[in-house]
Structure formats: structure tokens, C-alpha cells
């Protein structure tokens, strides 16, 4: 990969982050809502403030947040803050900064996402490869079919069905939460086991619907590769079927699959956000939901920007993995 492509990719990444930040900056300012006024309005309804004091408070707060400055100055300052990952303070959990709120919840989300994405990608790719492999036994090839039927069921709907059948009817698994009520987080095996049991249903709701997409794309790739000359040649050379399957067939179909993964990251992350809050897991989705309920705008915008930057970064990383997978890109 030459420097020109690297620079191009980095510039595109910067452009995406800039576009997202600009949208997040201007959209709320176009709206007639005033977060600070609303916040103090709420306080005024509950506590005894006189209207004059409220106006003074609002004015001082606006000065503190720099909202009295011209909008372009605010915009420059805001872009600078984003570069430093400074999203301001949370309104509903005040002394905490938005970055602290995000950092507190993000490990949960990363754990869930990493496990589910890797599992569904690996299972789906293998099943898809097997489904298109004519020498595989029929029963092995038919495993993929139920997953294909589940493709497109939104993870949140899958979650509700799993909650009903597995959690509510069969009472096999807990109905929500990150760990059992009454347990205190600690480093024991018992707590870890409890934690894992609570992660099964959320993970399944993310995996079951997405395996099918990988099966479909891999199967499509597999069918085209079978007709290729190099596969025929390898067969006539007398290579073992296992070797052909691994090195000639899966290996070559993998590159488009990784491209697909890069394109799917946005969907995968947003699905996790919604599933987390269905199961009440303390991840970034639940943090977003709580912020929406509390009208905590800095946290809402901070989380949105954080996720967007994370997704753009992941796509950038996958771009740099291509050369590892495909020697043609490496030399070119």
C-alpha cells in the first residue's frame, strides 16, 4: 500500500468525522429548544426560584458554556474540543463529564460487540463456505438454511422473542440486567458466571439475525470461486480437499467478506445500542437512553459523535487489514 492511498484514507476519515461533528453542532442550534432554559425551567417548577433569578442564572450559564459568543467562534472552539475528545459536562449527572459517562459504559458495549460480531462473522462465513461446497455432506450444508430465514429480523425483535420463549416461558435465562439483583461486582468466578449468563440472550439476539447475511454473501462468493481455473488445477494436482477448501476457496472469498464487515459496522453498532437497552445492560445504549429521558443533550451528542468516530476508525483499520489478506494490494 503506497503513501498516496494511506493519505487518501486518512483524509476520508477526517472528512467523515468533520461532517458528523458539523451535523451534530448545527442541528440542535437550528432547533427552537434551549437546553439550559429547559433545565432551569424544570428546577424552577420543583424548587423556589424567582423568575428574575432564573434569567440571571441562564445568562451566566450561557456565558459559561460560551453560548453568548458568535456562532463561528463557538464552532471553531467546538471542533477543537472534539479533537481533544472533550464533549463538555453531563447535565443530569453534573460533576461528571460526558467523556467520563462514555468511558464508564463503553467497556460493556465493546465486550458484547466484539464477541457477537466475531462469532456471527466466523459462524456465518464457515456455514456459507460449507453451504456452497459440493463435497460437504448434505446435513452439514442444510445447517445454514434456518439462519438464512432469520436474516433481516431486527435484533430488538429477536430479543423480545428470545425473552418470551427462553426467558419467560422456559425460565432458562434471566430477563434482563447485567447481573443478578443483590450481587456486588467482584472478581470471583461465581460473579463472572452470573455475568456471562446474563449476556447470553443479548448476544444471541445480535448473532441469530446476522449470521444469515454472512452465509448469503459467502455462499455467493463460494459458488463463483468453484468455477475458477485455479480450483480445478488444485484438484487435478491432487491436493487434499481440506487444503483446497482452506487455502484456495475460503481464503479467496474472505476479502469481500471483510469489505462486507466494514460496511456492516454501522448497523452492528446501532443494533447493539438498541439491544442493550432492551436487556438493561449498562452499556453505551443504556447511557444514551437515560440521557434521552433526562434531556441530557451534551451526553446525547457526545455519545453520537463518539460512536460515529469509533465506526469511522474501525472502517479505517479494516482498510489497513486488506493488504494482509490480499497480496495483490500489498505489492500494488
Amino acid at each position: 500500500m503506497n503513501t498516496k492511498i494511506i493519505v487518501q484514507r486518512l483524509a476520508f476519515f477526517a472528512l467523515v468525522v468533520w461532517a458528523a461533528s458539523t451535523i451534530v453542532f448545527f442541528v440542535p442550534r437550528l432547533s427552537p429548544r434551549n437546553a439550559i432554559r429547559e433545565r432551569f425551567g424544570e428546577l424552577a417548577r420543583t424548587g423556589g426560584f424567582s423568575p428574575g433569578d432564573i434569567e440571571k442564572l441562564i445568562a451566566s450559564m450561557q456565558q459559561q458554556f460560551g453560548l453568548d459568543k458568535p456562532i463561528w467562534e463557538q464552532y471553531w472552539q467546538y471542533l477543537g474540543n472534539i479533537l481533544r475528545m472533550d464533549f463538555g459536562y453531563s447535565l443530569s449527572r453534573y460533576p461528571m463529564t460526558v467523556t467520563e459517562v462514555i468511558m464508564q459504559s463503553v467497556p460493556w458495549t465493546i465486550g458484547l460487540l466484539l464477541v457477537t460480531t466475531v462469532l456471527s462473522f466466523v459462524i456465518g462465513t464457515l456455514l456459507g463456505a460449507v453451504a456452497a461446497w459440493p463435497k460437504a455432506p448434505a446435513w452439514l450444508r442444510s445447517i445454514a438454511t434456518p439462519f438464512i430465514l432469520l436474516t433481516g429480523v431486527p435484533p430488538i425483535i429477536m430479543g423480545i422473542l428470545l425473552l418470551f420463549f427462553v426467558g419467560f416461558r422456559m425460565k432458562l435465562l434471566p430477563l434482563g440486567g447485567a447481573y443478578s439483583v443483590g450481587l456486588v461486582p467482584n472478581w470471583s468466578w461465581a460473579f463472572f458466571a452470573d455475568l456471562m449468563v446474563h449476556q447470553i440472550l443479548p448476544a444471541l439476539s445480535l448473532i441469530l439475525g446476522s449470521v444469515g447475511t454472512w452465509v448469503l454473501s459467502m455462499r455467493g462468493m463460494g459458488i463463483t470461486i468453484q468455477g475458477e481455473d485455479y480450483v480445478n488445477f488444485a484438484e487435478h494436482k491432487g491436493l487434499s480437499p481440506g487444503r483446497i477448501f482452506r487455502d484456495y476457496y475460503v481464503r479467496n472469498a474472505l476479502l469481500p467478506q471483510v469489505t462486507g464487515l466494514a460496511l456492516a459496522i454501522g448497523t452492528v453498532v446501532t443494533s447493539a445500542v438498541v439491544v442493550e437497552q432492551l436487556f438493561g445492560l449498562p452499556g453505551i445504549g443504556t447511557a444514551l437512553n437515560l440521557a434521552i429521558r433526562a434531556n441530557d443533550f451534551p451526553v446525547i451528542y457526545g455519545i453520537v459523535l463518539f460512536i460515529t468516530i469509533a465506526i469511522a476508525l474501525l472502517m479505517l483499520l479494516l482498510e489497513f487489514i486488506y493488504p494482509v489478506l490480499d497480496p495483490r494490494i500489498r505489492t500494488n
Partner: protein
Amino acid sequence: MTLASIQTPMAQEIKQPTAPVLVLRYLRRNKGLAFGLAILLALTLFTVIGLITIDPKKAYPLSAAFKQPPSLKYPFGTDFFGRDLLAAMVLGTWQTAFIGLLAGGIGTLVGIILGFTSAYFGGWVDSAIRTICQILTPVPVLLIQVVVAGSLDKRDVTIVTMAMIVAMLAWMGPTLVIRSQVLTMKERQFVAVAKLSGVSDMGIIMKEILPNLLPFIAAAFVAQVFMAVFASLYLAVLGLGPLREPLLGNIIWSAQSQGAFFNGWWWWPLEPAFAMILILGALALVNMGLDELANPRVRRTE
């Protein structure tokens, strides 16, 4: 002997079947499309009959008994807020379909206009439109919609504003699809012939290219309706929907906030979930069927 004189007697002998018969024959071959359309028809019937026979007031709080499981009196049960879930499902399915159709329609229309402009005129217009689409594609649409919906006053969020929020970022897909199709279409001979005969740009677009693109536009529209229903479900589930309305996503959101499964009210979240599967499944089937119609070459490659 000229060509015309051979063809005339043949044409008289063969009786041309009428259009509905042809459509039915095609549907018998394209089973996915037929099945998807059948589900959509059943859902439409459920909604239309429901809207005629059921009092829509029952879909709002305090109009029925509380937390009743499905019974003869309440076939779909009632919820924690005293809504008759049968009425709520009828109205919710209608509202969900309305958001999908409105947002999908706007997205496709904008996509058609931008796609045509981009592909037909080319040059800097094309690169500007393409770059904007490329930059916006990796930005997760749902998150931007969260920002927009979160910036609105919760009382201002109605079914229509919801559709607008969803439509705002639903045009990139159709733009790129239609752009690439127009680009291939532009090189075809019939367009060149029309151009040489002095047909205006608008004439070529309207009379030569647009009719040939109809199957693609239909497929793009269905795909967009699917995305819009999906997006409105996610926004509603995050609590950003019009909270008073019994939109399917809102029913799920309120059931979830009240801990429906913990309290044993299983029917409450389950019914909108099943309705959602039917709607999205049917749309996916229709979309695949239309792809087959638009792209005869990919027909049954599997």
C-alpha cells in the same frame, strides 16, 4: 415477401392474454414476490377492517380495563395504561405503514431527482453529489436521526415529523442505485438515437430512460420503505417517537419501560414484535422479488 406480411397472420392466431392474467402468471413463477404481496394484503385488510370497525379512541390510555391478558372481550389483551391492544395494533400498524410509505416515498423521489441529475449531466455536479453520498454513508443514519429527534420538543414529535426525520437521511441509497442505472442506460443505443433525432434532455429522461428504470425505482422504493420502518422502530424504541401514539415501536418502548416480562404481561411486547416481523418480512420478500423482476439475469442463480 416482407417481414410484416409474415407476422400479421401469426398475430391474429395467437390470443394475447389480458394484463391481470399475465401478472398472475408471473407471480406463480416469482413465489417470493407473491408471498410477500399476500402478507402485505392481509396486513392491509387487518388495518382497513380494523380502522372501520374499531373506535380509535380505544388505542389511547384509560379507555379499557388495565393489564388484561387476551380474552374474548379483549382478543389482544390490554396494557398497563388501559389501552385496548387490538385497537392499538390496528392504529399502530397503520401509523407504521404511513411513516414507511411517506419517508420511503420522499427518499426515493429525492434519490430519483439527484440520481438523474448526477448521472445525466455528469461533471462537477456528479462529483459533488457522489462525494456527499460517500461521506454520509459511513455515518450511522440512526445516530444522526437521534440528534435530530432529540433536538425537537417531545410535544412536537408527531407521526409526520417522525417520517420527515427518517426521510432526511434516506435518499443516499436510491441516489447511488439510480445514478449507476442511468449511467448504463445513457450508453444504450435507443438513447443515442433519440439524442441524434433532436429530443431534448428532459424528453430523453422522461420518455426514454425513466420508463426503463421503473422496476429499479420500484425496488429502491420498497427497500427505502423497509429502511424507514426499521429506522422508525429504532427511534421509537429509544423513546424518541411520538410518545402518545400507539406506533408499534412505541408500544414496545412502553412495554419495555414498564418491565412487561418481569411483571408477566407477555402479550404486550410480543404482539407488536410479531406485527413488525410480518411487515419487515413481507417487505424483504417483495424487495427480493422485484430485484428478480428488474434484473432477469440474476434470476434463480442459486
